[in-house]
């Protein structure tokens, strides 16, 4: 019996969310007396080593150009690995790939799925229960998975990554996609301009600003603060709607839901739709000139005052702190 983990390589490195999944699967393997098998496509030696350190006992090294391009191919390939390894639990990251592949696999295998798990499963004989957030983070629900094969997609940044000294056995795994066809034809790919920042959905530190900044020309102080922390910049919905900032920076209910370790909100009032996208953040700092701003009720640290005066001073304070650390 095994716990199968789908691991992705992105921009030359093992996705952080994937390493979290390997750690998570190692815990499930303990609970279910099984072993951790990783499915990964086009990984190099150092990436395979890192996956081993995260807790894989065996790695199915796949080399197939169709895997990872379209959920039809990726799902069919993983289905073959599930059968070959007698996998009873399959773990994905609850990211864009996980959201299109895991449910498809669930349909194919008739395997019950919990999408966006936030904690380890509780296994007791035949009972298998997993917690996830519901109502946009306002509550959580404990799900029981009642099928023989179980699928969990893990909400990114739910657990810190630990790497040990374990080395996995690596085997070549040939997937046969000869009978699988996808009708989706990719015509064009556009990359978001990111200025070398960590993508928002993976970022541990996020500096976000709203209408309080008064105009796109004032974003320099936000970018400076983000740079001092090595954080990723984000924005509220009105800011993205007015095209002050690109759409891919928009966090909130209609934008991206994120849960970084630190979320600094500057000039954002904290409407419930915004909170729905950020309330999973570990620590929230709010800077706003309105002491009645609802966001202060959902923050850990707050400063009432003028962002144009506070933000540059905060950037200096962080630079000073970093300099002292070195």
């Amino acid at each position, binding site marked *: 019996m095994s716990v199968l983990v789908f691991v992705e390589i*992105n921009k030359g490195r093992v996705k952080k969310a994937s390493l979290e999944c390997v750690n998570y699967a190692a815990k499930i393997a303990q609970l279910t007396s099984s072993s951790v098998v990783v499915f990964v496509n086009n990984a190099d030696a150092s990436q395979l080593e890192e996956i081993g350190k995260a807790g894989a006992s065996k790695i199915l090294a796949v080399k197939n150009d169709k895997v990872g391009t*379209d959920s039809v191919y990726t799902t069919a390939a993983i289905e073959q690995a599930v059968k070959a390894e007698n996998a009873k639990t399959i773990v994905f990251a*609850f*990211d*864009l790939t996980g959201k*299109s*592949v*895991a*449910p*498809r696999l*669930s*349909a194919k295998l*008739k*395997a*019950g*799925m919990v*999408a966006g798990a936030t904690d380890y499963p509780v296994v007791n004989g035949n009972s298998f229960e997993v917690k996830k957030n*519901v*109502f946009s983070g*306002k*509550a*959580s629900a*404990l*799900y*029981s998975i*009642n*099928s023989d094969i179980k699928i969990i997609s893990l909400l990114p940044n739910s657990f810190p990554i630990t790497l040990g000294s374990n080395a996995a056995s690596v085997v070549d795994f040939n997937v046969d996609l000869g009978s699988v066809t996808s*009708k*989706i*034809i990719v*015509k*064009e*790919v*556009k*990359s978001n301009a990111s200025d070398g920042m960590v*993508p928002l959905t993976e970022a541990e*530190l996020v500096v976000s600003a709203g209408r309080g900044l008064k105009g796109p020309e004032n974003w320099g102080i936000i970018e400076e603060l983000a740079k001092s*922390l090595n954080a990723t910049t984000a924005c509220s919905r009105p800011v993205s709607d007015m095209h002050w900032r690109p*759409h*891919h920076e928009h966090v909130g209910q*209609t*934008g991206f839901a994120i849960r970084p370790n*630190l979320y600094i909100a500057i000039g954002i009032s904290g409407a419930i739709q915004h909170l729905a996208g950020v309330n999973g953040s*570990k*620590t*929230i*700092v*709010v800077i706003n000139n309105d002491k009645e701003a609802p966001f202060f*009720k*959902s*923050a*850990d640290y*707050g*400063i009432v*005052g003028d962002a144009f*005066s506070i933000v540059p*001073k*905060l950037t200096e*304070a962080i630079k000073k*702190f970093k300099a002292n650390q070195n």
Partner: protein
Amino acid sequence: MKILVAISNVPDTTTKIQFSDNDTKFNSAGVTFVINPYDEWYALVRALELKESGAAEKVTIIHVGLADSEATIRKGLAIGADDAVRVDAEGPDSYFVSEQIANYAKANNYDLVMMGKETINYNGSSVGAMVAGLMDLPFVSLATKLDVSGNKAIIEHEIDGGTQVVECEFPMVLSAAKGMAEQRIPNMRGIMASRTKPLAVIPATGSAGLTSIKSYQLNPGRTTCKMLSEDSLDELVNLLHTEAKVI
């Protein structure tokens, strides 16, 4: 071309969430229910625009739920859908709901099945990909633009770190995200017309669900916000390091 839009009936975003029966049921007393915003603003409205432009002949709403969700379905008809079908069952999970949608879409030859990127109650982002898997059809997630050219859809959608433009022959399934369309307020004529539009009620087919919810729990909110002054930013940085341990 015929479009099937799946809608979910969800508590309004501003709802104060409460549970009953020893925290095993969502307490719907006094709660305002609405069409799941992503299903409505993005999927349904874009489907209607395609019909208005002549690219689609018919837009049908499908909803899996009990009779108390009919007001929500009628609102979809008031916005402009031609007809609606309600699968008369309380869906225990995404798999069950997906099976109902897939079975109906297959039996009635819909070319395009679409819905929002996720529901705001269970946040699973699963139904679209499951429907596609059950029907063995292509699936495109997080579509931000959709056009139709002959028997093909041309779609722009979000991928990791960017966007992609794809083409896909019908039939297919897609989930819709911000950018597809703008919210529409139903007008009086639409509301009047919605009362007499066909709303079929059909029994559920297929299996029971594969998962069940044992209990709910409210997530603890933040209780106290530590207020600092503009002159104590060094202290804030220190707190982020020593107390919150995030930098």
